[in-house]
């Protein structure tokens, strides 16, 4: 297809999407109301209705809807094979499939070992119990939690970041004559990742993140208490209020590139993600909650265990333990998430009704949202608890963030935003900016990615102080790119360079980088990108 045809098809798809959305009905109703206004003359019907709608703010809503559609539906020619939309490169697809088989095998064996079903229906009394305690699922001892079918101590997380790193490290491009899989021994990259993905250079990154340059005031640096507020803070607050009132996603994005003031962050993120909680959303959440009450999934236990291992032990997030359950449990029942698999290399795992193994009519996606949680998954939600205290909003914001960004951090893909590309970007940037550091670490047996990988996979949640994670995620959302994560990782290594140059073992290097909670995100990013 040539470009015009692609554009035409895209517009047709867009209109189709809009016509079937709730916005269409609302707009139609509003237009009817406008048309019935007595001050309107028949000869000026079209203009009158249009200006009436504009006055009512409908044009902005429409613009937001189109903007979000553009964002979530990449404008490229549909390739013949839907598999290619998910992932164009065959060897990567194969690697992802192998990995998925491995995870499922591990999950199934845990099931058989502990003799528990993947899913079971809850008894009436248990449902009532759980409903009564919905807001405090984190407290009480194990004997007071009849809905947890077994002792949590027997549950193990299905996989952890280091397992995933092994998978990513093992990727080899079969087209390379000299690659290991073809019998050669030539590693063309210094680091762990051997996949030739096209990446941005440091100069391109500088241009991309130019709003963060040192000569521009940033939230997180220039609005601290000891700096007089006339310099930046007061104007920023005024501007922020105007931006919020405008309710237009691209504008919110531009504003947030310099960071969101803490009090405006909630609304800004909602505008950037296109989350507007209305009665339909509240009802939908209640529906998910009912699903949770009716059926108990093995995945629930994985989530409980994960929260208990990560968030409950964290200084910053232990307070929000109960919110995490209220978000994660319904999340695993939400089938809307299945839609994102069309551009995600991963495939949702299938399970079969008991006794009908292999029979396609009895296949169901398990868990219903297709996402198997891993060790640290709960930490994607935790920082959001500082921004939203209403569970329904929290849920929808998290869901959007997952569908748009977080899923890329734990599936194998050649996408420039995927974890493979981000890891390679980290390694290349570190080699370019700090070659002696990289060389030294490699010599002492410490590949830097081994330490940085878990940071990238969790988007730094749980490693930085709570307000710093939020500042970092501000940039992820506003620049619409996860590339800031490897840039920050490089900045950390640069910052601790003098100590790292002295280490002689992998453990010592790990120790130097074990605690990064004292680091300030924005100054470090500015240093990494814009100095030298």
């Amino acid at each position: 297809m040539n470009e015009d045809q692609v554009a035409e098809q895209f517009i047709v798809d867009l209109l189709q999407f809009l016509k079937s959305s709730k916005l269409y009905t609302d707009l139609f109703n509003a237009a009817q109301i406008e048309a019935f206004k007595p001050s309107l003359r028949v000869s000026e019907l079209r203009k009158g209705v249009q200006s009436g709608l504009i006055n009512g703010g409908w044009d902005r809503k429409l613009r937001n809807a189109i903007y979000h559609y553009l964002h979530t539906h990449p404008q490229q020619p549909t390739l013949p094979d839907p598999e290619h939309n998910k992932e164009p490169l065959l060897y990567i697809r194969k690697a992802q499939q192998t990995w998925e088989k491995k995870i499922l095998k591990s999950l199934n064996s845990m099931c058989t070992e502990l003799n528990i079903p993947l899913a079971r229906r809850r008894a009436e009394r248990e449902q009532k119990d759980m409903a009564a305690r919905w807001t405090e699922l984190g407290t009480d001892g194990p004997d007071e939690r009849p809905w947890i079918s077994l002792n949590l101590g027997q549950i193990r997380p299905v996989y952890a970041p280091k397992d995933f790193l092994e998978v990513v490290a093992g990727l080899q491009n079969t087209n390379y004559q000299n690659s290991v899989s073809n019998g050669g021994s030539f590693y063309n990259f210094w680091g762990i990742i051997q996949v030739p993905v096209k990446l941005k250079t440091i100069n391109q990154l500088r241009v991309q993140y130019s709003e963060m340059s040192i000569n521009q005031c940033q939230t997180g640096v220039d609005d601290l208490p000891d700096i007089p507020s006339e310099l930046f803070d007061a104007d920023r607050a005024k501007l922020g209020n105007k931006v919020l009132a405008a309710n237009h996603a691209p504008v919110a994005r531009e504003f947030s590139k310099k960071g969101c003031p803490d009090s405006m962050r909630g609304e800004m993120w909602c505008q950037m993600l296109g989350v507007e909680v209305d009665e339909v959303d509240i009802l939908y959440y209640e529906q998910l909650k009912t699903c949770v009450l009716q059926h108990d999934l093995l995945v629930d236990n994985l989530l409980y265990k994960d929260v208990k291992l990560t968030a409950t032990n964290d200084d910053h997030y232990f307070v929000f333990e109960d919110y995490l359950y209220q978000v994660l449990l319904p999340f695993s029942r939400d089938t809307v998430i299945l839609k994102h698999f069309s551009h995600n290399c991963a495939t949702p795992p299938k399970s079969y009704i008991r006794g009908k193994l292999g029979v396609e009519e009895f296949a169901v996606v398990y868990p219903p949202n297709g996402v198997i949680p891993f060790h640290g998954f709960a930490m994607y939600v935790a920082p959001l608890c500082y921004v939203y205290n209403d569970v329904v909003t929290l849920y929808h914001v998290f869901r959007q963030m997952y569908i748009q960004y977080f899923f890329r951090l734990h599936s194998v893909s050649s996408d420039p935003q995927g974890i493979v590309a981000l890891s390679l970007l980290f390694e290349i940037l570190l080699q370019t900016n700090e070659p002696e550091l990289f060389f030294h670490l490699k010599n002492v047996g410490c590949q830097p990615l081994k330490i940085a990988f878990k940071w990238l996979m969790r988007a730094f949640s749980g490693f930085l102080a709570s307000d710093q994670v939020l500042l970092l995620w501000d940039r992820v959302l506003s620049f619409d790119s996860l590339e800031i994560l490897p840039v920050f990782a490089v900045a950390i290594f640069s910052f601790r360079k003098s100590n790292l140059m002295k280490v002689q073992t992998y453990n010592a290097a790990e120790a130097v980088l074990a605690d990064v909670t004292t680091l300030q995100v924005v100054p470090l990013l500015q240093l990494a990108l814009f100095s030298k």
Partner: protein
Amino acid sequence: MSSCCPPPKMARLKYATDFDKSVLLNNFDTRGWVQVSTDDDWNIYWAGVHNIRNIFSVECGFRMGDDQVINHFPNHVELTRKDLMVKNIKRYRKELDKEGSPLAEKDENGRYVHLDFIPLTFMLPADYNLFVEEFRKNPNTTWIMKPCGKARGIGIFLVNKLSQLKKWSRDGKGNSFVAPTAKETYVISKYIDNPLLIGGKKFDLRLYVLVTSFRPLKCYMYRLGFCRFCTVKYNANVSELDNMFVHLTNVSIQKTGEDYNAIHGGKWTVENLRLYLEGTRGKEVSDKLFDDINWLTVHSLKAVAGVISNDRHCFECYGYDIIIDDNLKPWLIEVNASPSLTATTSSDRIMKYNLMSDVCNIVIPPGEFPDVRWNKVPAKENYGNFDLLVDEELAQAELLSQEVKARAGASNATVRGARDLRKPTTWK
């Protein structure tokens, strides 16, 4: 921050201490100070409250030299004993009312507008009848009984029926000749049943306030206070009144609960509290809350400034316990003279170590020997994590110089005074 680089080791002070706590001893030793016994010629004595009475007593006490400082004021109980604190604050408010000060402004219900920072409190057994009158007006309220002489949550219980107070009713009706000792007096306060809940959990605030002088008042607020969370979900249900884990946030009680976590100890930093409140409630209300907290602190100190012996050898680091209610209003629950120096988690240990270090730097200029003739104006770089709340001497001096410069019209002195008190609490 200030304790990362070793302080100058020019002056080898001698210290004595009643506490064998690492956060103290490590601080002193790093400064190159030498430990001596309490009978020797120490420069700084970190005393326990039980010894203070002896040190300052008329009979066996001794006079301190010009180069000696001690960590308590002689009659700190005026602030740190629950009944005396309430008594002093009530008296302070009445005095301001008599003076006609705008601070003592009351609303249509007779409640103080600016100085309503302690929950309604009565002394038992002395005020028993007054209490009963109040109780009968609102019979569905809960009250909390606290013994005056104890700490760490010992002996506290909740009351929602008069029958629970039989013991004090007998004592109140009659023998008022025998003045009850601290051990027998209780205070009963209106229980704050709408505390601010975060994640569904109740918490209280512990803030550290350093006072180096009461007249003129010089006090500093530590930025790194913390919130102590209850490990069990808060439940306003009457039947839960007996469950101490739900209602009391004292760490020593929480520690024995099943869900207590030793990694974070149920403690949250005040910075996280601020981040959460700004994000979920907005900047104005959260700024106002922290302003109110500073206001409350300053006035609680001013209330006792008149009765505390302002011995120049003394300083004191208080632990303020504050509860925030659902309307983001802070309530002063009590003031501790000996905030615990035990560290429950590693971040706790670091925080308390830094606290002690910053206290030392403010009280004794680094590198020098203590001198009671010093004007007690520490250099700003020695504040560490403390922020100056009020320094009346400096404020007065500034006022005078402004007056001389401006030669402005006749501004009301009391109004200026009131504004002056407000100014340092919003330090932007």
